[in-house]
């Protein structure tokens, strides 16, 4: 079973799951009228049919590939970053940025745009071992302040202040 799992199959199932949640919400929770559900029902049905077709196609393609493969493909040699000497690990880089984004989102809610954005820019730059750390710190603070003044003072667009620092910004 595990050998049939690939990203394309998982993503198809995720899309169908999202539509399934919407359908359950509409029919069983919100008790929407038939008139409200006409167009969504049509669209959700098409998504379900296409999802099943895509899953079937994917499983058949994987089965054919497994039958024709004789030996597993050789793993590519890891790349080394010339600047830092570290081994490049795309998966670790991706997990790192997703976690940082989630933490940024929480900080944004708590302390607002300016503080959380400066923290994000400096943390990421220092973690990725940029050759001139002082540039990261100075540029990070300067750029965020430029965005802040451009949007709030010049364009009159509000910026999220954060629930803890609401009075300050």
């Amino acid at each position, binding site marked *: 079973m595990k050998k049939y799992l690939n990203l394309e199959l998982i993503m198809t199932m995720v899309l169908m799951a999202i539509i399934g949640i919407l359908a359950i*919400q509409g029919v069983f929770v919100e008790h*929407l009228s038939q008139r409200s559900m006409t167009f969504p029902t049509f669209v959700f049905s098409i*998504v379900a049919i296409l999802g099943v077709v895509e899953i079937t196609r994917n499983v058949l393609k994987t089965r054919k590939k497994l039958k024709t493969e004789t030996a597993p493909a050789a793993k590519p040699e890891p790349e080394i970053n010339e600047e830092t000497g570290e081994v490049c690990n795309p998966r670790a880089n991706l997990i790192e940025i997703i976690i940082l984004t989630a933490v940024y989102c929480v900080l944004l809610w708590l302390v607002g745009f300016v503080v959380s954005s400066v923290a994000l820019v400096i943390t990421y730059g220092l973690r990725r071992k940029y050759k001139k750390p002082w540039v990261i710190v100075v540029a990070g603070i300067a750029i965020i302040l430029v965005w802040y003044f451009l949007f709030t003072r010049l364009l009159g667009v509000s910026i999220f202040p954060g629930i803890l620092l609401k009075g300050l910004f």
Partner: protein
Amino acid sequence: MLEGLLESLSPLNIGLVLLGTLIGIIAGALPGLGPTLSVSLLIPFTYGMSSTTALILMGGIYVGAVYGGSITSILLGIPGTPNSTATVFDGFPMAQQGKALQALGASTTASAVGGLISALCLMFFTPMLSRVVMKFGVAEQFILAIFGLSVIAISSREHFIKGLLSGFFGLAIATIGYNPITGLDRFVFGTVWLSDGIPFMSAVIGLFGVAQTFKLAENACNIAGGEKVTGSLWEGIKSVFKHPVVTLHATVLGLFFGAVPGVGGGPANLISYSSISSAAKDRNTFGKGNVKGVIAAEASNNATVGTALIPTLAFGIPGSAVCAIVMGLLTMHGIDVGPRLFTNIPVTLYTFFWGFLFANIALVLIALPLMRYFAKLTILPYQILVPNILVLCVLGSYSLRGSFLDIIITLAFGVLGYFMRKAKFPMIGIVLGLVLGRMAEANLSRSLLIHKGWSFLYTRPITLAILILTALIIIIPNLNLKKIVAKRKAKA
């Protein structure tokens, strides 16, 4: 008309055209701002101005803002405005190949050409075109939405099922929020925040901007993947004239979609891109850095600008939020829009039209010299670029409605977009579904109510013609495929 031309050539008005276009370019380049907000921010400043001054400044900002979105689309992969979504598909890959200058040159020139033709149409053909526009009702708007959705099928031929799945998923997400006919909330999970549905720009900033940020971070390299920006601005400018058929095809599509009320630049650039990419001989190179993709998107989106004003001026029916603001400004300065306008066109209106035309020339004069500096963004180290792009996405998303939920939506769509792209789901499908979903549903419901059934599909000539065209566009390319498959089977 001559008086209007002479008035628009005064030093003050020329200066205002340049200033307005520059402000518009900067506002359009910042995701989440766009032409609507930029033009509406101008209104308080116009109270003390003469009508000509206010209209010329507004025209410059409008033209600049529609173009400005292409800068971030190409350099950062974040559409600055809904009108520049399709520019990302080929503009950003060009930047990744180090050809940012060529892409920027092509987008600037294509925008200017599309905008100039649109301004000329507005000036000379408004009374004639307004008679055609009058014939487009809800049935025609519904079938145009279907036409727009059908291009998903032809533009994602390599991944046909995934393209359709992506498109219908986008349609499904577009049903979240209030029902456009009954006004009742749907799929809102008991919150008021989702009553207005998923904001298109928040979703698109996530699907493209945040997803691209994750990809840059994953690969740990800058946008251009190297130390230098290669390619030349002049090559980009020349490419627009080297592909006149693409430029004119995109411009005509933009003129058409701009004139139909309720459609506008958002769908126009996507449909134009898909239609041109699927008809091209080198269709496999689209989405991988083909300059024709940039030309198709940008010529059409600026071509919508002038013709979008036709229903506004001719009938007093604004086709978009920006047109509503323009109508307000015109009324505020003593110009009553509507059918009587063209029996005795005031000089002020002609001055506005000429200002509009000059704004498209100003676009080239202002934007091209600055592009060399903008292009250097693509060689900035990823350690600086990645977090700053993320911050810009968050800012752009929040500035739409001032809601923290929009930031969550952007980040969620960012994660979804990243994995969908990795799993080879075409992005154009989900974007078209999001932008056309409400339009399709609302106009279908209205058509069924007005015509008491599906008879509108075959009793209205324009609807029938577009339906047949849609069917042909889907069937003909697939007929060729079947022939190729049959030939290969016969050989084997």
